[in-house]
């Protein structure tokens, strides 16, 4: 307590600069006066009395010093003194300071930029209260290789009553719905959720209420919670919105709540993230399938763990539950299916896809920061020789070495801090521009902000880097040969061997680090290039896709597009009219799953093969787009076997499908797939109307195309005909000389002249879709390449500085050699050899490190081996060339040295 009190008084003295010195002087004067009077009373003469009084008091200055030390905090005072001195030193050599600050600004600015992305995505992925309690639960049937097969209603009830979770919610994947009744029909993303979903996330409304258990009556519920964005856009922020009607897919809902503006739903697809309407559903009762254990809802399960329960502990209890359920219902969970439930942190499902890229970027930017630091340390050491005299004088005057180190460190820290703040300032100013570089598919893009937290990070990094990379230079700078330096007077002093060795090590590590970065960039570049060049198996040239959405009301009877036959009238009319649009050569229709690479999470259906014993929930799952017969020709996917759909394949004729080569190879190995029959577990409504869907015959095999992922050559696909199977989420494909600015309006006019209730949206060229699908890779590649270029530049500067310095030190020696008749070419060779030695050592270390790093990032590579020889050789060559070029300039200077003037001036 007392200590604290004293500290605060001292601190306030320091801050207010209020000095008690005057008071002390007054007191001492009074003291002397009292003593003098006393002495005079004892009979001394006035002069002697004063003298004796002063003698008795002792040295007044010492008292003042002592008093001053008691009064303030010497550490901080020294710091202020050091800071003032450091500022003076920085101002004295503005060129050096500017270069050092700019280098640090580059390193710290880049690191901070990546950090701000990581902060928003990896560190704070879930903007909900107590995010650590939120988990995802996946049902897996690992015995049949089926992942995330969805949950059945009885299993959901088991989880709710297990005691492991506070609450377990089910939500559909994001899906689309038509909002009609507004000026222009709008397509929205909505989610069917169990009534506790919003409560599990921990979100509350700004208006109205979230769902309560009453909203969980069997079947669909008519309560809707809407987003702040929709509320403002469509309802003008109407404060009386509660209870108002919302016409979604021709069904009437009413609004019970409006969520706060900051709320975003979780999810890995853009549909899920942009959800604007939440509808409560009972998940049981019509039109959902009856709640049987084997009947799994196509849903994701999000739960909140009991407080204090770790994921591992919860998983253990869950495993026990699964084991006992298996024992209880052996018929539902056959041993060969190997049913398990897996818990994972919810944050993982949001950021899982981009983590590796971001970690790579952070690593790359960390290397750039390291190189920047090394460069500045190098500059500091170079300057040390110039400041040797100053330091020697200060030492001669009695400055202790620790004091000197502290002062030098203050100077270095100031440099680093200024660099960090400058880097942050640039980032802050340029954030609007920089954010445009970030791919849109990154989760939580909108949360990326350059704010206080990022500033704190920048400052912390600057200080840490300053201390780490400032200590060694400060140590080396403070150790001067006192006598030698002072005796040399004004002559250029020779640096200490410790310092030049340190500089060489620094440059070598710089070269090594840049080599690592360049190899990483080279490998990524090659992967990207390979992906970019890969033949996708379909022809995206001059193709546009424009989406529309057919409403699917809850009551099937109210659906005017319920059957494929009903829908086909509309589709044929759309196709007919589309072909009349200017520039259109071909037109086709497919569902969103048929849109190549345009959907991040297409649903897969269980594939049941005739003659292969499977029950529904153990079947392999397959992508199954629905397309019109023209689709394959429009996208240039060649038929290999059998036939394509034709106009005689209708809803009332036998069901037929076309598969791709991969499906044939995987599911009918060494057999002729033509004529084989399959069954797809179709959507819920279908199941209710017919107990068992009829068998479907394979009529054709088309060539593999990379329509799901450019990186994956062969994903099994099973195409169905849109005239046999209705689809709600439609894409209209057009090929021809199209004008992107007008085509979507033209298509909308045509579609809405057939049915004014249909929204038409999201026109994009397939080339754009392709390029968007590569955006995260492109982003990592571009960033790493940028960092690598920066690293190369910095390493070049580093080696240039070091060789210049070496040349400068050897000026005398070179001049003597020249005077004694050495060939100038030999001098050139001598200097270049020094540079080459550094490069060789740096490149050697760098190659080893690069091998390790390239193996760590193997997961990000495509089509290129982590030990790709051309990349390693090319990078080494470039680095060597740059380094040699950087040493060539000082070497040239050394060669042109005039021995007479040099020796004269020495």
């Amino acid at each position, binding site marked *: 307590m*007392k200590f604290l*009190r*004293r500290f605060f*008084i*001292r601190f306030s003295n320091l801050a207010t600069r209020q000095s*008690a010195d005057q*008071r*002390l002087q*007054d*007191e*001492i004067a*009074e*003291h002397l*006066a*009292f*003593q003098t*009077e*006393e002495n005079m009373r004892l009979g001394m003469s006035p002069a002697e009395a004063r003298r004796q009084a002063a003698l*008795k*008091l*002792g*040295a007044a200055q*010492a*008292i003042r010093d*002592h*008093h001053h*030390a*008691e*009064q303030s905090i010497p550490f901080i005072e020294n710091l202020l003194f050091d800071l003032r001195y450091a500022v003076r030193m920085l101002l004295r050599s503005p060129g050096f300071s500017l270069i050092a600050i700019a280098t640090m600004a580059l390193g710290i600015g880049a690191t901070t930029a990546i950090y701000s992305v990581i902060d928003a995505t990896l560190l704070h992925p879930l903007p909900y209260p107590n995010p650590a309690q939120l988990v995802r639960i996946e049902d897996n049937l690992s015995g049949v290789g089926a992942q995330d097969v969805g949950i059945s209603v009885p299993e959901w009830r088991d989880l709710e009553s297990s005691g492991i979770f506070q609450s377990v919610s089910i939500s559909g994947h994001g899906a689309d719905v038509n909002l009609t009744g507004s000026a222009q029909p709008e397509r929205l993303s909505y989610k069917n959720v169990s009534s506790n979903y919003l409560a599990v996330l921990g979100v509350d409304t700004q208006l109205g209420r979230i769902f309560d258990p009453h909203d969980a009556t069997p079947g669909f519920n008519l309560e809707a919670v809407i987003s702040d964005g929709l509320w403002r856009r469509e309802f003008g922020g109407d404060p009386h919105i509660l209870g108002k009607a919302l016409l979604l897919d021709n069904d009437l809902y009413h609004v019970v709540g409006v969520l706060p503006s900051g709320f975003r739903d979780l999810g890995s697809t853009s549909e899920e993230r942009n959800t604007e309407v939440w509808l409560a559903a009972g998940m049981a009762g019509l039109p959902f399938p009856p709640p049987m254990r084997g009947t799994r809802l196509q849903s994701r399960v999000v739960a909140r763990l009991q407080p204090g329960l770790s994921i591992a502990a919860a998983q253990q209890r869950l495993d026990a539950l699964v084991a006992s359920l298996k024992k209880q219902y052996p018929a539902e969970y056959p041993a060969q299916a190997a049913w398990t439930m897996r818990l994972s942190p919810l944050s993982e499902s949001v950021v899982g896809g981009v983590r590796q890229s971001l970690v790579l970027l952070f690593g790359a930017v960390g290397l750039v920061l390291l190189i920047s630091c090394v460069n500045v340390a190098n500059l500091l050491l170079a300057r040390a020789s110039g400041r040797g005299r100053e330091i020697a004088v200060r030492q001669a005057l009695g400055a202790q070495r620790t004091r000197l180190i502290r002062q030098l460190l203050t100077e270095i820290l100031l440099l680093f801090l200024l660099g960090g703040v400058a880097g942050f300032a640039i980032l802050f100013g340029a954030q609007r521009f920089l954010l445009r570089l970030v791919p849109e598919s990154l989760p939580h893009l909108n949360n990326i902000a350059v704010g206080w937290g990022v500033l704190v990070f920048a400052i912390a990094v600057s200080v840490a880097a300053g201390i780490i990379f400032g200590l060694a230079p400060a140590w080396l700078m403070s150790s001067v040969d006192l006598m030698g330096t002072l005796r040399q007077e004004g002559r250029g002093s020779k640096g200490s061997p410790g310092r030049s060795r340190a500089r060489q090590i620094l440059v070598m590590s710089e070269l090594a680090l840049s080599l690592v970065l360049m190899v990483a960039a080279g490998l990524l570049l090659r992967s990207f290039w390979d992906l970019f060049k890969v033949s996708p198996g379909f022809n995206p040239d001059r193709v546009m896709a424009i989406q529309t959405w057919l409403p699917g009301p809850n009551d099937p009877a109210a659906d005017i597009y319920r059957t494929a036959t009903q829908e086909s009238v509309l589709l044929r009319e759309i196709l007919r009219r589309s072909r009349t649009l200017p520039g259109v050569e071909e037109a086709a229709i497919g569902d969103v799953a048929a849109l190549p690479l345009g959907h991040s999470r297409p649903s897969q259906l269980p594939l049941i093969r005739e003659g292969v014993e499977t029950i529904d929930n153990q079947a392999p799952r397959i992508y199954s787009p629905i397309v019109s017969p023209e689709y394959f020709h429009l996208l240039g996917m060649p038929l290999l076997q059998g036939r394509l759909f034709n106009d005689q394949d209708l809803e009332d004729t036998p069901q037929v499908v076309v598969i791709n080569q991969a499906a044939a190879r995987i599911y009918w190995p060494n057999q002729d797939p033509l004529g084989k029959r399959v069954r797809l577990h179709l959507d819920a409504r279908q199941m209710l109307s017919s107990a068992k869907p009829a068998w479907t015959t394979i009529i054709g095999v088309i060539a593999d195309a990379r329509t799901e992922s450019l990186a994956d050559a062969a994903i099994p696909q099973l195409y169905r005909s849109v005239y046999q199977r209705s689809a709600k989420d439609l894409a209209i494909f057009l090929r021809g000389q199209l004008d992107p600015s007008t085509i979507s309006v033209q298509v909308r006019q045509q579609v809405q002249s057939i049915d004014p209730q249909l929204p038409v949206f999201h026109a994009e060229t397939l080339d754009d879709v392709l390029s968007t699908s590569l955006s995260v890779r492109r982003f990592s590649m571009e960033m790493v390449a940028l960092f690598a270029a920066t690293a190369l530049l910095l390493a070049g500067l580093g080696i240039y500085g070091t060789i210049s310095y070496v040349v400068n030190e050897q000026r005398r020696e070179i001049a003597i050699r020249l005077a004694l008749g050495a060939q100038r070419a030999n001098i050139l060779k001598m200097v270049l050899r020094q540079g080459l030695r550094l490069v060789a050592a740096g490149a050697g270390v760098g190659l080893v490190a690069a091998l390790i790093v390239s193996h760590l990032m193997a997961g990000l590579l495509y089509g290129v081996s982590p030990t790709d020889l051309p990349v390693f050789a090319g990078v080494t060559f470039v680095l060597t060339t740059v380094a040699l070029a950087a040493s060539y300039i000082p070497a040239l200077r050394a060669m042109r040295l005039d021995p007479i003037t040099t020796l004269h001036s020495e």
Partner: protein
Amino acid sequence: MKEKPDVLQGTLALMVLKTLDVLGTQHGWGIARRIEQISGDLLAVNQGTLYPLLLKLEHEGSIASEWGASENNRRARFYRLTGAGRKQLQAETRDWEQTAAIIARFFKVKAEDLP
């Protein structure tokens, strides 16, 4: 002339507090003078340490000070004991007496007294 011993380390604060306790309010010179008198001029108060000590005690809250006029109408800074200072004095007095008693017992003890 024989050098007077300096005040034992750490006891000066106790003496200052006790002096203020006895004399009430007093200025710096008065405190120094008083300590020397009480010690029978055996101790010399190092004036150099007195003023920093007074400041320290003031920072700790044991004493308070203000300007005032002395008996012969001089302006001087007067120090007085605060409540906290009085408590500190009592505590330190107890500690000191205990220490002195222990030391005294050590001086008294003879070999045959030990069991």
